Every structure is written in structure tokens, then in C-alpha cells.
């Protein structure tokens, strides 16, 4: 019954874009139907998730499927429910936002196509989390991957967009290849394609599966150095698609990784060390690259890489706990990592949607073309501020809660064992602290350059807040950030169920017994009370005294102009300089000569070091060599079908030879 409810939700989501296809381009009925269907899908799924989380009983369904080795087997347990909730929730809010952001009336040429693939992405993601069979998993995975390719390329008349979507397609093919290899290895080991615990499995095989999972799922999650597709794809897609991609699509990589590790027997410690090292590098380098960006959405995209790093740190601690048989480490690390999955989808969704509202109003993604938005777009700006505070992990919002859980795991891991064992968690905690400090610098830079101060260009002149369809979805996300922050114990049960699905034997300590969730509510109430009291006192004193207004202090210079403000690149200059060894910022400037120099220009940008410094050059070399085989790919379909048949026949003959 519950399982059918989820299947219905997925089917409704998948079909949400279809009615619009049969309606004329001028009609706006299709878009409302699509948003309504996604909202219904979310409501149905939430009922099922609520049931699974409250009863603790997984919902299962298994139907025959004619494909060999495949079964239409779904299983909604605590872990799947945990990932399913943001998929349906964020996508419904994004679809409502899309009614005003990407309306049929203004985008008749591609809005129907976008809604179709939007629904398919959601359905693909949901199928992937639900699948209990490898082929069903891959089917969902491929639907999601290919639909996202089309969604990224929505504005493919722009040159950058097309390049971004192809880069995504190529990278994701490589990732899927790793997943095929991983499932083949699983099949070769267990003789089954069901996603079930693999108990008796040789350690070498387990490690092989783990490495392939790390490559395949890491590519989707955007773990450095596998992140090359992520920044441009997030920047090119329409903002509500960016919110969906950053909020939930890349998390499916995390889901796959966590699920795979949960099926494997107790891991060796080096898996944990590898995960923690990857988490540290993704987190620190992700935020470092973000600081160098001038494009609002590209900057947010690099922050997704940073947050994936934080999530990996949590998972690393959990794996460490499982390998050392320390359940408290496992619970703290996994709960921190998983809660950060939720939190990131909430605040990054909020940030992408508010960035979209700004782009909608001003027509540019350049941070240094914005400025002064707090007076022009007060609601959007305030919502962005909330998202910025949350993503920096600052109290009293949700980002702090998940980072605190990861910290507690790291403190607890460092607290025992000899000095050498405590060094890795200590360095990880220091890295997390550095990531937090750099994220603060980066977001305060965006806030200052894009939202505060004087407008930096005429583009801001006519900007104003969007309508309710833009504001309300952002408001809901902001409220969720506040609720999880102020009442962290409200998500305790969700976390407990998800962790239980990961724990061997399904038994694990409750998160509330390991982390001071209720104390935080008290402290944060105190913080709000202090802020309120101080704010009231300040306003009272200001009202009692004489108040004057005038220009900002200009040190006596008579004609300050908006262009003299500190720009986003001047704010970041010092950090970009300190991180030059990895960022390799490109600076173009003309020499200034003479007493009365001519007008000049200055430009600096930080490109992706991994993509432009490593992947592109090596692929160019490889392309030169492999070009000799290009005659194999003439671009005609019938020849490709012939290849498929030949490969199949070869495979069958070979299989007969191996198992006569």
C-alpha cells in the first residue's frame, strides 16, 4: 500500500510535463498542471515517508520485469526516505517558482521541454533512491542523467550553455561507466543484481567495489578532482533547475555511496581515511575556488563542491566508526553528513532561487554589476541573507547543527587512541574550521558586493522584488532552515531511521543521546532574546537621541562614485593571492604610463585548475592519438546498431566458453 503510494508519486512526477505537450504554446494551463502534479507527488511521497519514519517498517514492492537479472523491486527504508524527502520537496517548490521565473508566456520555445525533463529528473532521482535492484537503479540513474543534460542545455542558443551541457554529458558518461563496472563486479561476486547486503565477500573485492563506487558516485556528487562538470552546468541551467541540481541531484551521488558502503561488510580503516582526505580537499578547494568567482551562480556552484566535502567528512567519520566498531562515531558522523544533505538542499536551494530572482530582475549574473539590492529588493535580499548565514554554518540556523554533529564525531575520534590516530580527525576539524572561515569570507563578499552598498551599474536601477510565486517558495525554504536550526530534535527521528539502515544489524544509538540537541534550542532562544533586547535597546536610544543622515564618510574626498566601492574581486584579492598556488588567477592589465595615463582596463578571473590545467591538456593529447580510430565512429546509426549486435554476439559466445 505504502509502496504503491510512492510509485504513484513517482509516476505523477514523471508525467508532470506531459499534459503541457498537448496544449498550445500560448496556453499557460500546462505549466500550472505541471506544478500542481509535482505538488501532489510531493504530498503523496511525504505521507509514505512519514509512515516509514514513524513505524520504522520499510515499504517494499517487488514485481517481475522481463529483462534478465532485473526485477521491479523497490524498497523505501529510512535511508531512502531521508533522500526522497528533499527530492520531492525541493522539486515541488522549484516548479512553483518556475511559474514566475520561466513562464510559458515568456519562453514559448523551450518552457514545455524544460517542464518535461524537470519531471523526468525528479522521477529518475526518486527511482534511484527507491531501487532495490541494480538494473532499476541504473534505469533511474540514466533517466535522471540524460534529462538533466537537456535541462542544462535549455538555453542552448548561448555558446557557453552548449559547452556546459556537453561537458556534463561526457563526464557523466564516464561516471556511469564506473557504475556499470561496479555492478558487474557485484554480480560477479554475489551472482545477483539485487541490492542486498554482501556479507561473505573477499576484502579485495569489497575494496574494488568501494573504489568504483567512489569514482562513479563521486563524479555525480562533484568531489574534487571529479567536479569538472559541475560549476559550468550549475551556472548555465535556469535557476530553479540549478537549485534542483545543486540541492538534490548531486546528493544522489552521496546516496549511492552511502548505500553501497552500507551493503558492504565492515570496512577497513583506510576507506575512512580516504573519504576524510577527499572531504577535506573538496571542502577547502571548493570554497577556495568559490572565493575567486565573479559569476553569482558559478560561485554558488563551487560552494556545492565545498558542502559535498563537509558531507564526505561526516561519512568518513561514520566509516571510521564502523571499521573501529565504535557506534557513537558512526552515528555522529553519518547523522552529521546526512543532515548536511538536507540542510544543503534547503539553503542552497534558497540561495539559487534568490540568485535567480536577482538575475530575473537585473539581467546579469556578474556580482560586480549588482549592488544596493537591499533597498531595491528588500525581501529577496533578506532571504539571501538568511541563506548566507545558514550556509556559513552559523548559529542559530540549520547549517550549524549538521557541522556540529560532524565536529562532535571528529572530537570523539580524536579523543581516544594514540597520538597518530588522533592526528587525522584533528586535521579534519581544523580543515572544517578553515572551510567555515573561508565560506564566511566568500558569502560576506557576495552579500556586500551584490546586495549592499551603492548600485554598481544601471542594471540595478529598475530592479524590484518578484511576485509571490518567487517569494513564497524561498520563504518556505528559509523557514525550514530556521526550524531545523532552532529545533534540531525535530529531525532526530528521521536521522535515527536513516542511520539504522546503515548500521550493521540495524541497531544504533539514538542521535539525541549523543548530541546536545535540546540544549541548542535553549541557547539559540537565548541568542534570539539577546539580539532582540540589544536591537530594542539600540532603537530606543536612537529614537531618544538626535538623528541625522548624510553621505558615507568619504575621508574628505568630494566626489565619491559607486565604482570606487570595494568590488567582489578587490574583497577577495588578498585570499586569492594567498591561495595563488592552487587558484592560479589570470590577471590581464595594461601598463599605466606617463603623468596623464590613457584610460585603461583590468581584468582578473579564476578558472578551474583541474579542468583547464589537467583534464583539457591530457584529453587533447589523448584525442590526437585516438583520432586514428575515428573511422570507427562515422556517425551513422545503422553502423552503431551493428556494433551493439556484434558486441552482444561476442559476449554470448564468450559466456558460453566460460560457463559451458
Amino acid at each position, binding site marked *: 500500500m505504502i509502496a504503491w503510494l510512492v510509485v504513484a508519486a513517482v509516476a505523477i512526477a514523471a508525467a508532470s510535463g506531459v499534459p503541457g505537450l498537448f496544449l498550445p504554446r500560448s496556453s499557460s494551463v500546462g505549466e500550472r498542471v505541471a506544478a500542481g502534479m509535482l505538488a501532489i507527488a510531493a504530498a503523496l511521497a511525504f505521507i509514505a515517508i512519514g509512515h516509514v519514519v514513524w513505524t520504522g517498517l520499510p515499504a517494499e514492492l517487488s514485481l517481475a520485469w522481463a529483462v534478465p537479472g532485473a526485477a521491479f523491486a523497490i524498497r523505501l527504508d529510512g535511508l531512502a526516505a531521508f533522500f526522497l524527502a528533499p527530492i520531492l520537496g525541493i522539486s515541488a517548490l522549484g516548479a512553483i517558482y518556475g511559474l514566475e521565473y520561466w513562464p510559458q508566456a515568456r519562453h514559448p520555445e523551450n518552457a514545455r521541454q524544460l517542464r518535461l525533463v524537470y519531471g523526468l529528473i525528479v522521477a529518475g532521482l526518486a527511482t534511484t533512491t527507491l531501487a532495490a535492484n541494480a538494473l532499476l537503479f541504473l534505469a533511474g540513474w540514466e533517466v535522471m542523467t540524460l534529462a538533466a543534460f537537456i535541462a542544462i542545455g535549455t538555453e542552448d542558443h548561448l555558446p557557453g550553455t552548449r559547452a556546459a551541457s556537453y561537458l556534463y554529458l561526457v563526464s557523466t558518461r564516464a561516471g556511469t561507466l564506473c557504475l556499470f563496472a561496479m555492478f558487474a563486479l557485484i554480480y560477479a561476486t554475489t551472482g545477483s543484481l539485487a541490492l542486498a547486503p554482501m556479507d561473505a565477500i573477499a576484502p579485495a573485492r569489497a575494496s574494488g567495489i568501494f573504489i568504483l563506487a567512489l569514482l562513479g558516485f563521486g563524479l555525480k556528487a562533484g568531489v574534487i578532482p571529479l567536479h569538472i562538470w559541475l560549476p559550468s552546468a550549475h551556472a548555465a541551467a535556469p535557476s530553479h533547475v540549478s537549485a534542483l541540481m545543486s540541492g538534490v541531484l548531486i546528493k544522489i551521488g552521496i546516496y549511492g555511496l552511502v548505500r553501497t558502503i552500507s551493503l558492504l561488510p565492515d570496512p577497513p580503516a583506510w576507506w575512512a581515511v580516504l573519504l576524510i582526505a577527499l572531504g577535506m580537499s573538496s571542502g577547502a578547494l571548493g570554497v577556495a575556488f568559490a572565493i575567486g568567482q565573479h559569476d553569482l551562480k558559478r560561485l554558488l556552484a563551487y560552494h556545492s563542491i565545498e558542502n559535498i566535502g563537509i558531507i564526505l567528512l561526516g561519512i568518513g567519520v561514520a566509516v571510521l566508526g564502523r571499521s573501529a566498531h565504535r557506534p557513537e562515531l558512526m552515528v555522529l558522523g553519518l547523522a552529521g553528513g546526512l543532515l548536511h544533505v538536507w540542510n544543503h538542499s534547503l539553503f542552497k536551494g534558497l540561495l539559487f532561487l534568490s540568485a535567480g530572482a536577482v538575475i530575473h530582475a537585473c539581467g546579469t549574473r556578474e556580482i560586480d554589476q549588482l549592488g544596493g539590492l537591499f533597498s531595491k529588493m528588500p525581501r529577496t535580499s533578506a532571504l539571501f541573507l538568511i541563506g548566507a*548565514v545558514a550556509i556559513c554554518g552559523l548559529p542559530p540556523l540549520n547549517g550549524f547543527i549538521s557541522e556540529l554533529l560532524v*565536529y562532535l564525531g571528529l572530537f570523539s575520534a580524536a579523543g581516544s587512541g594514540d597520538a597518530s590516530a588522533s592526528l587525522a580527525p584533528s586535521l579534519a576539524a581544523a580543515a572544517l574550521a578553515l572551510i567555515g572561515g573561508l565560506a564566511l569570507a566568500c558569502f560576506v563578499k557576495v552579500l556586500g558586493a551584490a546586495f549592499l552598498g551603492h548600485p554598481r551599474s544601471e542594471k540595478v536601477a529598475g530592479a524590484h522584488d518578484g511576485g509571490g510565486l518567487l517569494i513564497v517558495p524561498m520563504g518556505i525554504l528559509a523557514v525550514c532552515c530556521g526550524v531545523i536550526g532552532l529545533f534540531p530534535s525535530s529531525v532526530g527521528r528521521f536521522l535515527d531511521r536513516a542511520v539504522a539502515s546503515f548500521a550493521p544489524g540495524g541497531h544504533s544509538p539514538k542521535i539525541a543521546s549523543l548530541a546536545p540537541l535540546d540544549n541548542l534550542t535553549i541557547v539559540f532562544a*537565548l*541568542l534570539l532574546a539577546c539580539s532582540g533586547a540589544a536591537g530594542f535597546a539600540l532603537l530606543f536610544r536612537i529614537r531618544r537621541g538626535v538623528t541625522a543622515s*548624510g553621505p558615507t*564618510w568619504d575621508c574628505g574626498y568630494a566626489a565619491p562614485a559607486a565604482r570606487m566601492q570595494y568590488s567582489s574581486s578587490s574583497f577577495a584579492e588578498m585570499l586569492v593571492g*594567498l591561495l595563488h598556488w592552487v587558484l592560479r588567477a589570470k590577471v590581464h592589465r595594461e601598463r599605466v604610463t606617463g603623468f596623464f595615463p590613457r584610460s585603461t582596463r583590468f581584468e582578473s578571473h579564476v578558472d578551474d585548475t583541474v579542468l583547464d590545467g589537467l583534464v583539457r591538456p591530457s584529453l587533447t593529447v589523448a584525442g590526437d592519438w585516438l583520432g586514428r580510430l575515428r573511422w570507427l565512429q562515422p556517425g551513422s546509426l545503422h553502423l552503431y546498431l551493428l556494433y551493439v549486435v556484434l558486441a552482444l554476439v561476442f559476449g554470448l559466445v564468450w559466456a558460453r566458453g566460460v560457463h559451458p
Partner: protein
Amino acid sequence: MKLVETATHVIVAVVLPPLLLGIIVKVKARFAGRVGAPLLQTYRDVWKLLQKGSVFSTTTTWVFKAGPVVSLAAVMVAALVMPLGSHPAPISFAGDAVLFAYLLALGRFFTIAAALDTGSSFEGMGAAREATFSALAEPALFLGLMMLARKSGSASLTAMLGPGLADAWVNNGGALVLVVVSFFVVLLAENSRLPFDDPNTHLELTMIHEVMVLDHGGPAFGMILYGAALKLFILGALVARLLTPVSTGNEWLDWIVFVVAISALAALVGVVESIMARLRLLHIPRLLVAASIISVFAIILTR
């Protein structure tokens, strides 16, 4: 009993902070051969500012007013999780050390945002420096906390600075010395003291904290001044407790020990400010990274 202790904690934390600034100024004046401002001058300054009128730039929005409010509220709550001397903090739980650090970060976020709200390039400079240097100071603070957590087996400041500290000095004195050095550097950096920032400078181009609050005046600036004193007080309490890991058994005697210790620490800050020149801005990151590395050595040395 708990109530009396909490009340004493709050009263000490509310009353004492401006005195520390007075001590620093006095010590610096004595080094320069001057008499210096009275010890209680900061109290008078805060009081005077609260009575004054305000001037607001037409560029600013509510974020400008939220800056001093939120940063003061954040350090006030942070003061409640920091134990003073051998007395446990009124609020303590596993992970309050992390909360402490992140509350300071919350205050910093809003201070920087308020500075950028003015649209002044000078305040932008100060904001960029503050954001850069404090990001580099975070790892040093956390590595030190990690060492204390390892020693005490807890992620709570009250336990880290509790009765076990005297033992830790006996067993692991070397590592603790390194942590104290690292924390002292963090204290100077976080509170914008020399050699990181000169609170007395009068040139906007060279300042960090003072330039960020150039446009604040009247009651708002009074709150900033008091908040800065409180921040110095709570970070000072951390270092002072590490240096006086004693408990006399008598509660009121312990309070006296604490007040003497933190006053001595303020005097030490004054001495440092008197005998050191300001570092070049470009050299500041090196000192902060060095503080982190010192903390890593402390962790390696911890048994």
C-alpha cells in the same frame, strides 16, 4: 548555589570587560612615559556614546544597525559558555566549544556586512582583511581546542578547562605551552590588537577593525566598543584559565584569582603592544599559519 554562581558569572562578565581595555591603555601609557587615561575611561566612553545622537549614511539599510546588535548578542551568549577561572560556565554541553567559535563567527559576519553596507571602499578594505585573517585564525583555535578535548575527553569548554587542567600541566606541560602560545596569537588577531592591527591608528588605509566601524556612531558605536571589550574578555578568560590551572577550594578566592589572572593578561597584551611594531599586512597570514602549526605540534605531543 547554582543560581548564585550563575549570577556572579553574569555580573563579572558584564562589569569587568571595559576594565581590560583600561589596563591595556594604562600599561601602554606607562611604557611611553605618560600618565595615561584613567583605568575606568572605557566605562565613561561607553556611557557617553550611549547618550549621543546618531548619524546614518543614506546608503545604509537595516543591516547597518543589525551589525552591532547581532555581534554584541553573539559575544554575550558566547560569554555564557566560557568558564571563568575554575568556575564552570552557566551553560555547558558537549560541543559548546564549537558553539563558542561559531558565535564569534556570527558576530564577525554581521560586523563585516554592516561595514560593507556603507559602500565605502575604506570599510571594504577593513572588511576584507578581517574576513581573511579570521579565516586563517580559525584552524589555530580549533587545533588547540582539539588538543584540550583529547586531554579532557570532552568537547565542552567547562570540562576542557576544569579540574583536570592541573594534571594536564604535569603530564603534558610542553604541549599546553604550545597551545597557550597559539591561543594568545588567536586572541591578539581576533581582537585586532598589535601586531595584527593597531587600535590607535588614525589612517583608514592601514586599519582593520576600527575602519570597519568608521561610520557607526553614538549608541551603535557604544555597543561595538562594549562588544569588543567583551570579546577580549572571553578569549582572555580562555588563556588566563590555561595559565592558572588552580582551584583554591574557596569560591570567592577563586574569583579573585581569576580577576587577577585576566588583569595580568590584559597587562601582558599592553606590554606586547608597547614593545612590538605592527606587522606588514602581507606578513600577518604567516604568523597565523605558524600558530596553527604550533597547535599541530601540541597535538602530536599530547599523550
